[in-house]
């Protein structure tokens, strides 16, 4: 059973069935936008969306997460001991995740699941999650997934992929996890393989054609880091930036965090929270010194990390899946596509002619 | 000189004012401090704020001293302070000068049978009523009448009881203060009892001539206090209701009776016979009214050299004037004793300070029993044991009396032996005892700020007498909070600043010259800056004083002294172009005579004076016969023939004063006009002289002049603000029309001299105010540090104030204030070095956003911006610790949280709050 067809009724029933074995997450319309939320009760995913406002990364990597609890009350036997709180490791399913967002988990995994270090919090959540993708038919004007190693119907990072089909959906199991989920949902109505392959291929091709904006990344790897670092265009790129951090909070591939203790009386918890390289505090030293004290340094860091250091460290791709959220939500219209092109095309020899302020 | 010291029967060095004796003393007698309205014991402290706070025994009522029985206090006293064998002692003091400040006695109205004061409990003197209104008084401020403890609904004040009265008593002078205190009592009574309390003040002339007083009067009217111009003849009881009936005549002649539930007699100030006897013993002259006689140009000097006077013994006066006099007397004595200055000083031994920075806190906790004061309620040993368990506490002790000298010595020793680096005392209030314990820290070589107090007496044992267990728990909480703060406190530095020994006096009038002379006579180099080309100021326009002195003669003498004085430099035709610096270290740029000069000085006295209002009303300027008061003086000085030939003269008072646009009384114009009316009458007894007035404000012994004028036939006609006199010209005739207040009909007076008693205007020295960062009030006069207690200085340190720049006042009062300003300035100069408090605000420059809020907000101008060229933190704000008063305004205002108050840091306060939270 690789391909199944699902009619509207089966779909709705399937979502309902899933809830007995999984915590189900899916897109929900809130105001004018969609967000991924846990679907409780009768709630079903609203599949009529193009891209959610926030990325679904918080399903695996919550914005604020407790690592330990402790007490300093010496009358308690377990005082001064860091204890892990009880957490919910039950299986969870993300229904309707877009392929670009799905890819982001693979990129982030490189950080949280490396040979040297395995982050237990992220990994536990990740491993408990089954990702059911939803092929994208109408990419936004800001989308550039095809330049970022993904595609509207790409399957990287997915356990199953669902596409539209007359009167319902067609689904493809990609992993065993995906297969198990489809079984649990009762989506077992097998589909003719050739017909299905054709449907998936047609849909993919049609969607891909709609992506008009291509971003060049081919030369990033070969540029010397210091050339890019010293490039004069950063002043211009950074000028309008207000360091608000919207881009990092919305980005599916931004993984940085900050660890904080919070206590009340003798009771305390250690939490970790999303952090942003746009914030001066991100790099402030206890001494008061801040190696990235200037806005331009922080802006450069964000783009260099995504488009150069990542490339160099992992030898492939970029740390971006082309979802376009940062382009869309930046209040001052800083466009990563423009920056990426600029970096890719940068020639320090020719730079002397440019109108940039540092020359 | 010899002084008699009456026995206290309590050894001052032993008494720690624990109050055990008072608890047990069986003898109850009327409390003199509370005007006999409450009871106290035979052993007592006169009042709660008494200094020193030591008990004494009243020998006239003490059972032991009278009958050799009782002695309860002696048995109970934990320190053995009671000594019944004390004898009267005569001390011989070797002094060079004496200042008399014996005060006054309120007039006793018992002799006035028509007022029934002796018979009716609800007729009170104002001094008694003050106690009723006081929170520390017999009713704790609750306004009730003594006969039946009912809250009165209607209260009447009768003014001029024992003042301005030669009919029923022989006190012709005005007591100066009663109008104002009656209004104050009425306003406070309304505040205590609610707006529906009916307050009526029966008066002759409303004399609110002090600074801001007229506004207070107007506000009282707005608040509904009734002012009735009538002298009430008698107070008649209404049956046995306790109420009283007053009969009076209203302005329009109606006879009215009204029933009041409480009557307050505004009794005057008088010199008691024992003071008259003292004056006789000392050989000093008194005035007709038995006040100390002084000269207008030497307002605090008695007739005997080296003996000075201040306060109500010199004449009836209020607190600000008394405080001014006190400063002047101190200054006069200082001038007199100048050669002996610093001949009797001693230098205290200084223990080197231990460096505790980076040491782990070692807190010592001293829990005080305060005799039974604390230990009677709180379980002190339990609190001490508890303290031992707290973090960083290394040593705990409980003391019977922490404040006693021997305990202090032990504490200092303990600090050294135990290597303590933070000290917490859980005892009474830091308000009285913190400095004492801090001295002990200093003696033990610790920075005095490494100290924290927990008030387990006033805030605990005293208020939770009936809940000993909870009180003990609260004491533990307070100690825990104090310890948590103590662990975080840091030694603080007090900045020492050299005080430049030169003084600058701005203004070369009578006030400025007197201030300068006083400073120079006490040994300080002084500069006078005068914008005109001569010394003398407004006084040059005055003819004679009521004393008969020709002002010009005295002025000339004074100016000659100034010019001959080697220590005084006079800068004529000079103004200030800029002022930099602060107390002790001013740098002032003088501009004049074609150049600029920078002067360094430690203090500044502002004596910039005032000016005469040039009237826009009453056709001033349209006829040469219409004069201002000063123009009349000029004519008198010049012996102008117009004076001799005049058949009629009219004075109009309050020209430009007490008007909505200038709502203050110019204080001197009534006396000035009355005095000049006498001069006119003397020059030409047949002249018809009229004074058109609103209230005649010849306060104090100036009242004699008023009487003299009336006796000479000067006619006084009252008008009110709504019906001001009108001046018109009929051909050559100059006619003043005024509505006669008795007849109620218009009256035309043809006059040859019309004198307009015009207001005194401030010079509105806005630039100067900015230079020295001192405030001006709405009227344009400078605002002193404290209306009552600091009249001759500014809130800004090192800047002082006198004369008309402060408020309109006559020459004698200006001179007194000039000397007071000099006296205040010298307290600063004499120290040579000033130490600021360590508890000042400090800016963390890395958090400062340079928004300037602190710079604009600080009332003391302590924050400034660093120069943009500075190497470290250019342009950030910083606080000059020498100017900072630690008020915390900037700390609260700083959005960036960059400012903190040393000694009250956020982390210290939060530590206290969080450790309190643990309690619950």
């Amino acid at each position: 059973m690789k391909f199944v067809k699902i009619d509207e009724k089966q779909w709705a029933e399937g979502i309902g069935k899933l809830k007995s074995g999984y915590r189900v997450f899916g897109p929900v319309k809130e105001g004018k936008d969609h967000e991924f939320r846990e679907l409780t009760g009768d709630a079903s995913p609203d599949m009529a969306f193009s891209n959610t406002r926030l990325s679904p990364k918080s399903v695996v990597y919550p914005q604020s997460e407790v690592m330990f609890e402790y007490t300093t009350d010496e009358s308690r036997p377990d005082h001064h001991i860091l204890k892990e709180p009880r957490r919910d490791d039950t299986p969870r399913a993300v229904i309707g995740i877009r392929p670009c967002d799905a890819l982001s988990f693979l990129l982030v995994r490189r950080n949280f699941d490396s040979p040297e270090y395995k982050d237990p919090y992220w990994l536990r959540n990740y491993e408990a999650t089954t990702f059911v993708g939803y092929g994208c038919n109408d990419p936004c004007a800001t989308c550039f997934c095809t330049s970022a190693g993904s595609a509207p119907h790409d399957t990287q990072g997915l356990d199953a992929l669902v596409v539209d089909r007359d009167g319902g959906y067609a689904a493809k199991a990609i992993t065993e996890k995906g297969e198990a989920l489809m079984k649990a949902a009762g989506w077992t109505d097998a589909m003719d393989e050739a017909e299905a392959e054709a449907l998936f291929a047609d849909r993919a091709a049609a969607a891909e054609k709609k992506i008009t904006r291509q971003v060049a990344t081919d030369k990033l790897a070969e540029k010397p880091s210091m050339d890019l670092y010293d490039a004069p265009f950063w002043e211009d790129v950074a000028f309008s930036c207000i360091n608000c951090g919207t881009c990092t909070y919305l980005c599916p591939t931004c993984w940085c965090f900050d660890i904080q203790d919070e206590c009340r009386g003798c009771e305390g918890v250690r939490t970790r929270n999303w952090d942003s390289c746009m914030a001066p505090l991100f790099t402030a030293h206890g001494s008061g010194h801040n190696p990235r004290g200037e806005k331009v340094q922080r802006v450069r860091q964000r783009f260099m990390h995504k488009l150069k250091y990542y490339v160099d460290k992992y030898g492939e791709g970029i740390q971006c899946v082309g979802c376009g959220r940062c382009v869309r939500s930046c209040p001052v219209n800083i466009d990563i596509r423009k920056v990426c092109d600029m970096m890719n095309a940068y020639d320090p020899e020719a730079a002397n002619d440019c109108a940039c302020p540092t020359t | 000189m010899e002084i008699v010291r009456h026995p206290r029967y309590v050894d001052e060095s032993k008494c720690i004012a624990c109050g055990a004796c008072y608890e047990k003393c069986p003898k109850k007698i009327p409390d003199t401090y509370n005007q006999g309205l409450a009871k106290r014991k035979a052993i007592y402290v006169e009042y709660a704020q008494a200094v020193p706070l030591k008990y004494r025994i009243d020998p006239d009522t003490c059972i032991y001293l009278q009958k050799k029985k009782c002695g309860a206090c002696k048995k109970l006293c934990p320190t053995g302070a009671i000594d019944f064998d004390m004898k009267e002692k005569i001390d011989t003091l070797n002094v060079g000068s004496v200042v008399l400040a014996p005060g006054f006695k309120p007039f006793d109205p018992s002799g006035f049978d028509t007022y029934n004061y002796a018979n009716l409990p609800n007729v009170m003197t104002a001094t008694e009523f003050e106690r009723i209104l006081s929170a520390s008084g017999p009713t704790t401020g609750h306004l009730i009448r003594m006969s039946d403890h009912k809250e009165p609904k209607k209260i009447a004040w009768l003014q001029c009881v024992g003042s301005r009265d030669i009919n029923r008593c022989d006190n012709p002078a005005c007591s100066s203060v009663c109008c104002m205190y009656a209004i104050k009592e009425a306003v406070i009574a309304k505040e205590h009892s609610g707006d529906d309390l009916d307050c009526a003040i029966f008066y002759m002339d409303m004399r609110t001539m002090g600074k801001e007083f007229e506004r207070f009067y107007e506000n009282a009217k707005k608040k509904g206090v009734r002012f009735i111009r009538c002298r009430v003849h008698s107070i008649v009881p209404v049956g046995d209701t306790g109420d009283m009936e007053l009969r009076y005549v209203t302005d329009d002649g109606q006879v009215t009776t009204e029933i009041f539930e409480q009557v307050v007699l505004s009794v005057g100030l008088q010199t008691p016979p024992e003071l008259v006897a003292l004056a006789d013993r000392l050989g000093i002259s008194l005035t007709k009214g038995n006040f100390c006689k002084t000269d207008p140009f030497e307002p605090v000097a008695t007739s005997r050299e080296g003996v000075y006077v201040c306060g109500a013994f010199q004449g009836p006066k209020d607190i600000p004037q008394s405080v001014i006099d006190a400063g002047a007397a101190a200054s006069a004595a200082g001038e007199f004793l100048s050669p002996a200055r610093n001949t009797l000083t001693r230098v205290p031994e200084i223990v080197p300070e231990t460096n505790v920075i980076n040491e782990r806190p070692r807190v010592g906790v001293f829990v005080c029993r305060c005799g039974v004061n604390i230990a009677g309620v709180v379980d002190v040993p339990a609190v001490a044991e508890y303290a031992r368990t707290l973090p960083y506490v290394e040593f705990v002790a409980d003391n019977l009396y922490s404040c006693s000298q021997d305990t202090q010595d032990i504490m200092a020793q303990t600090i050294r032996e135990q290597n303590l680096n933070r000290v917490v005392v859980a005892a009474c209030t830091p308000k009285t005892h913190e400095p004492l314990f801090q001295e002990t820290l200093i003696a033990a070589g610790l920075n005095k700020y490494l100290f924290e107090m927990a008030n387990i007496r006033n805030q605990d044992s005293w208020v939770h007498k009936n809940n000993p267990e909870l009180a003990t728990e609260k004491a533990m909480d307070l100690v825990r909070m104090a310890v948590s703060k103590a662990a975080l406190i840091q030694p603080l530095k007090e900045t020492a600043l050299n005080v430049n020994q030169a003084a600058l006096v701005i203004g070369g009038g009578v006030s400025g010259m007197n201030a300068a002379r006083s400073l120079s006579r006490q040994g300080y180099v002084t500069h006078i800056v005068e914008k005109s080309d001569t010394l003398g100021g407004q006084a040059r326009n005055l003819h004679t004083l009521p004393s008969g002195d020709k002002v010009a003669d005295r002025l000339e003498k004074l100016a000659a002294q100034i010019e001959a004085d080697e220590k005084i430099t006079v800068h004529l035709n000079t103004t200030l172009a800029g002022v930099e610096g602060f107390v002790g270290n001013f740098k002032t740029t003088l501009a004049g005579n074609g150049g600029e000069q920078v002067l360094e000085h430690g203090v500044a006295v502002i004596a910039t004076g005032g000016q005469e209002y040039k009237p826009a009303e009453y056709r001033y300027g349209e006829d040469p016969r219409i004069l201002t008061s000063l123009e009349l003086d000029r004519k008198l000085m010049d012996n102008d023939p117009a004076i001799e030939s005049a058949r009629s003269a009219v004075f109009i008072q309050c020209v430009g004063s007490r008007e909505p646009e200038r709502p203050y009384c110019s204080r001197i114009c009534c006396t000035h006009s009355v005095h000049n009316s006498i001069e006119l009458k003397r020059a030409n007894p047949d002249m018809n002289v009229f004074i058109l007035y609103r209230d005649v404000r010849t306060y104090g012994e100036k009242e004699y002049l008023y009487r003299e004028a009336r006796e000479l036939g000067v006619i006084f006609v009252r008008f009110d603000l709504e019906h001001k006199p009108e001046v018109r010209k009929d051909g050559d005739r100059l006619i003043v029309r005024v509505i006669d207040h008795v007849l109620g009909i218009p009256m035309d007076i043809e006059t040859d001299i019309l004198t307009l008693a015009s207001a005194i205007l401030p010079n509105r020295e806005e630039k100067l105010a900015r230079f020295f960062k001192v405030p001006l009030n709405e009227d344009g006069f400078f605002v002193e540090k404290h209306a009552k207690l600091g009249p001759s200085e500014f809130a800004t340190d090192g800047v002082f104030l006198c004369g008309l720049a402060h408020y309109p006042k006559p020459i004698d009062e200006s001179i007194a204030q000039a000397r007071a300003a000099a006296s205040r300035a010298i307290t600063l100069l004499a120290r040579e070095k000033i130490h600021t408090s360590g508890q000042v605000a400090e800016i963390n420059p890395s958090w400062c956003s340079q928004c300037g809020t602190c710079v604009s907000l600080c009332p003391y101008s302590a924050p400034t911006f660093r120069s943009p060229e500075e190497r470290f933190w250019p342009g950030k704000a910083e606080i000059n610790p020498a100017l900072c008063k630690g008020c915390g305004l900037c700390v609260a205002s700083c959005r960036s949280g960059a400012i903190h108050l040393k000694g009250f840091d956020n982390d210290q306060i939060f530590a206290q709050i969080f450790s309190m939270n643990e309690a619950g």
Partner: protein
Amino acid sequence: MGLEPGRLHFSWISSAESTKFARVAQEVTEAVKALGPNRHFLKEKAKVA
């Protein structure tokens, strides 16, 4: 903000007005006691995701 009105009180009390201070402290204490324990704006221990 939605804080119950009785929980916040502003008063201008000079250092000389001890009786007023005591009165205001008593009034505020009584007002707050009447409202009972505060339930708004209490920070619970951080939630586990």
